[in-house]
């Protein structure tokens, strides 16, 4: 029997509002564990988790690893460089070989959209999507939701604007799904060349000028300008981007209310966000990182497979 989230966490699009709230509520007590002197609970003792990272990642990989270790799971990291992936082994073969070594969960980061789902349909272990191409990055979406909720309270009717390179951003997609399900109003702001054509169909407002977004929003989620994906000339230059769409203190000072500043990292200071904003009083960027560990612990906990046939036996003796 699958847990309350099902077998896998592939994205926020397939989750209900109640399931999202369950993860956020569960993350709250997990945050406290990271503040203890002994930052470890025995919950996932004996479970083996493989972190399968086909793309570079520091924050997400380490955050997952902390979450796994603080729940006492055993972890193995597999990066594409230095593994048989670089010898041409397919994704499914890699995963099946790992599964033959008796693992319980796979956390996967992959450059191709849909890679996590592809894997989830082919192996028995729980699969957690840690970012697939430009599709989704559900745990980032969840930690953004948790951070926003901690600072703004109930998100119903709150106005969140996603600023920047929405086209290449899986973070943007997970944010839009999650925020709209929790009843927030969502807008995007960026050059048209960096917004998906079908953005209107996702039920979001589009601002062409950042000044309009500043006027409107309670919070900004500022996306990284993905330089490694930018060879194709989406914008004239980084300096011009900063001049037109950069989140600067001068712009935020014109806002009718304090705007909470989120950024999934890594930041390009002086491009999409200025240092005095990133380090300013309304920035919750490091809070996001702390919440990331708690949210991932909650997801691991909720996905970890229970064996219901044994549960009946346990219940007969349970208090």
């Amino acid at each position, binding site marked *: 029997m699958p847990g309350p989230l099902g077998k896998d966490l592939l994205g926020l699009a397939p989750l209900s509002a109640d399931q999202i709230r369950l993860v956020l509520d*569960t993350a709250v007590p997990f945050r406290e564990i990271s503040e203890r002197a002994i930052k470890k609970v025995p919950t996932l003792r004996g479970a083996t988790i493989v972190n399968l990272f086909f793309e570079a990642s520091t924050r997400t990989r380490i955050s997952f690893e902390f979450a796994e270790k603080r729940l006492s799971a055993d972890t193995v990291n597999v990066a594409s460089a230095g593994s048989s992936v670089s010898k041409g082994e397919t994704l499914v073969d890699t995963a099946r070989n790992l599964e033959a070594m008796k693992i319980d969960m796979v956390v996967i980061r992959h450059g191709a959209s849909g890679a996590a789902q592809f894997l989830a349909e082919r192996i028995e272990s729980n699969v957690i999507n840690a970012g697939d191409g430009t599709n989704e990055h559900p745990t980032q979406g969840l930690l953004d939701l948790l951070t926003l909720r901690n600072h703004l309270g109930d998100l119903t009717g709150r106005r969140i604007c996603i600023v920047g390179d929405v086209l290449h951003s899986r973070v943007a997609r997970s944010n839009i799904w999650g925020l709209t399900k929790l009843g927030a109003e969502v807008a995007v702001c960026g050059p048209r060349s960096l917004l998906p054509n079908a953005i209107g169909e996702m039920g979001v407002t589009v601002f062409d000028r950042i000044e309009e977004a500043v006027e409107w929003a309670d919070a900004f989620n500022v996306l990284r300008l993905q330089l490694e994906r930018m060879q194709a000339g989406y914008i004239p230059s980084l300096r011009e981007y900063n001049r037109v769409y950069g989140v600067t203190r001068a712009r935020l000072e014109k806002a009718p209310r304090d705007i909470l500043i989120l950024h999934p990292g890594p930041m390009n200071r002086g491009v999409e966000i200025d240092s005095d904003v990133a380090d300013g009083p309304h920035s919750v960027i490091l809070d996001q990182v702390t919440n990331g560990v708690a949210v991932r612990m909650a997801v691991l906990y909720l996905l970890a497979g229970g064996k219901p046939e044994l549960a009946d036996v346990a219940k007969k003796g349970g208090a």
Partner: protein
Amino acid sequence: MADQIVELNAGTDNLVLVGIQRRGVQLAERIVRIIKAQEGVDISSGALDITLYRDDLQTVGPRPVVGTTQLPWTLDDQRVVIVDDVLYTGRTVRAALDELADFGRPARIALAVLIDRGGRELPIHADVIGRKVEVHPGQRVDVFIEELDGRDEVLIATRDDEG
């Protein structure tokens, strides 16, 4: 029960009450109030959620909801009294002992329960017992307390399908 706890620890020095989520927490707070009224001293009380320390997590179906643990002070060299509503198999207390060990090294740990219903599966006993009752395994003990349920009551009910 408050008297017995004070007596057991030969006073209130370094005494700390830790209630187990959920109803143990409110019971612990009540005992703190009674001791305050009688002895005039403030005793710390905290909350412990043992969900993450359960020994049956690999077997239970839908994940149990995790509550909060609040132990804002060090437990080193304290005299800790665990407070819970019902003592049955002893597995909850075992989990609580494990969790407390991660917070420090108390001078001593005692156990106070409102109801001892028998049926232990582990070598664990309570030091302070509100009431001892013999209950068949097929029956359930429900404790209701004012703060959470709007009334103070203990019911012994026949188990319909699950506890």
